């Protein structure tokens, strides 16, 4: 059997496993709480690894590796940035969010925010609009990445790759809802961490070890082994705050936060914290070390983002290479399915059911949720196949838009008594608009990553509009929901 046939066989087996998981999860999905939140029954391993796998898209296996390849040691500032985001999410957000969302009976992030603020329709509708704008385009873009990965791995035409990869994601999400998405994300997260632990170790070994890699990079260019990357002054400040700033996005990602809401107990969250931190350290630093060693092993790559698949195909047994390439698909697919479900829940649960009072029975709500998955999934596949350019414009600020819109309001509403309906609405709108305007004005390239100013402005907007509302209504701080 040819190596390409073996690799294709592994990928087909992997797809079959995902569908089998979707089928098994469907048998346990009977109510809207099952479909949108797995009946709040997730254990610590699934909560931890599915939340981390869904937050890291193909960026970590392709983009981060390529950044370390091109930029050297200084590119690894993204790793502490992302891990600081994990710390905020896991230690400051997850325990309280799980407890309070369960007490409120909230199934989605807009549910949690709106119900906490007296059923504010403005907060709910604004949340849905931001989620839809950011995640709708993101799903389509990730499906584009799925198509390209299938094209590269299986050699099939791009359009067929989108339909096959997207079809599998759509089917298991439709069948098993949140439970299927979480279980498949768990499996995908395990494949990702195995690949990003094994490949860097093999690459470091092939390049002569840690010391030899640093010495080799220094011979190429001394700036490659400096944490400052040869930069000084404002350029260094921009590099470090920009890469560290990626971490500010974590507390605002609805597809990650819902995993914490679905954990079955506070003790599970405590275990989740440790598992997710270990996963994060292995994956982020694994990607970085792979990029550094790869610079010596394959010094003249025209596209550094192709380092991971290239090394896997060239240096591993086809069976192992197939698993490594399944890791790339895993990184992409775990993010797509989570985002698709959150976008669908924004339409069916938040807009139709809670916003306009439609589909209130369990049966109707479940049907609406599944219908939204099908419609949005097919729409995203159509956009991906046709490569509708305007949609991909939204992807440029999807991570930062969500992070700035929801991060400050989630953190402040969990930890202070100062968030009011006006404050939350002002924070969500300011975070999203500041991100778009900063990016569109080209300030991200000239000064600093848009998420940093947008996050700070949104936090200020929450507090200022909240103080104004309380003053006008003659109220003190609202009580924290017990």
């Amino acid at each position, binding site marked *: 059997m040819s190596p390409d046939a073996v690799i294709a066989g592994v990928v087909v087996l992997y797809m079959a496993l995902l569908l089998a998981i979707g089928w098994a999860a469907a048998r346990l999905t009977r109510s809207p709480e099952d479909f949108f939140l797995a009946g709040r029954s997730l254990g610590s391993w699934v909560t931890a690894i599915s939340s981390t796998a869904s937050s890291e898209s193909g960026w970590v296996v392709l983009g981060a590796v390529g950044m370390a390849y091109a930029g050297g*040691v200084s590119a*690894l500032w993204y*790793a*502490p940035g992302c*891990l600081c985001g994990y*710390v905020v999410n896991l*230690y*400051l957000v997850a*325990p*309280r969010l799980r*407890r309070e969302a369960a007490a409120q009976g909230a199934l989605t992030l807009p549910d949690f925010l709106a119900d906490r603020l007296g059923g504010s329709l403005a907060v709910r509708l604004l949340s849905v609009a931001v989620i839809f704008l950011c995640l709708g385009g993101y799903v389509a873009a990730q499906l584009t990445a799925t198509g390209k990965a299938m094209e590269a791995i299986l050699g099939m035409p791009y359009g067929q790759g989108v339909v096959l990869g997207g079809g599998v994601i759509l089917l298991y999400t439709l069948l098993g809802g949140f439970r299927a998405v979480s279980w498949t994300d768990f499996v995908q997260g395990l494949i990702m961490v195995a690949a990003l632990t094994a490949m860097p170790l093999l690459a470091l070994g092939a390049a002569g070890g840690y010391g030899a890699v*640093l010495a080799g990079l220094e011979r190429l260019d001394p700036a490659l*082994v*400096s*944490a400052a990357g040869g930069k000084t002054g404002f350029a260094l400040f921009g590099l470090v705050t920009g890469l560290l700033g990626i971490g500010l996005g974590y507390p605002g990602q609805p597809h990650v936060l819902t995993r914490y809401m679905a954990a079955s107990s*506070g003790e599970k*969250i*405590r*275990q989740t*914290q*440790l598992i997710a*931190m*270990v996963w*994060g*350290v292995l994956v*982020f*630093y694994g990607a*970085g*070390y792979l990029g550094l060693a790869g610079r010596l092993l394959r010094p003249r790559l025209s596209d550094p983002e192709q380092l991971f698949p290239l090394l896997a195909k060239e240096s591993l047994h086809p069976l192992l290479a197939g698993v490594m390439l399944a890791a790339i698909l895993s990184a992409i697919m775990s993010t797509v399915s989570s985002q698709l479900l959150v976008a669908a829940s924004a339409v069916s649960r938040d807009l139709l059911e809670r916003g306009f009072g439609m589909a209130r029975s369990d049966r109707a709500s479940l049907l609406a949720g599944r219908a939204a998955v099908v419609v949005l999934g097919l729409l995203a596949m159509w956009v991906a196949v046709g490569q509708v350019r305007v949609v991909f414009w939204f992807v440029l600020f999807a991570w930062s838009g969500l992070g700035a819109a929801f991060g400050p309001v989630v953190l402040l509403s969990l930890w202070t008594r100062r968030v009011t309906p006006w404050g939350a609405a002002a924070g969500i709108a300011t975070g999203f608009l500041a991100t778009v305007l900063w990016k569109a004005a080209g300030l991200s390239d000239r000064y600093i990553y848009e998420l940093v100013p947008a996050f700070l402005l949104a936090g200020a907007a929450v507090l200022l509009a909240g103080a104004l509302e309380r003053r006008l209504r003659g109220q003190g701080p609202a009580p924290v929901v017990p």
Partner: protein
Amino acid sequence: MERATLATHLFLVALPALFLAGALLAYWKGRTREP
């Protein structure tokens, strides 16, 4: 050891080890911020 080299080793090796040690410590002590 040169200062720049030491900074690189701290950045690449000690920093991830610090995150792992912190997570382990938080787990064993049960010191989440949940009241």
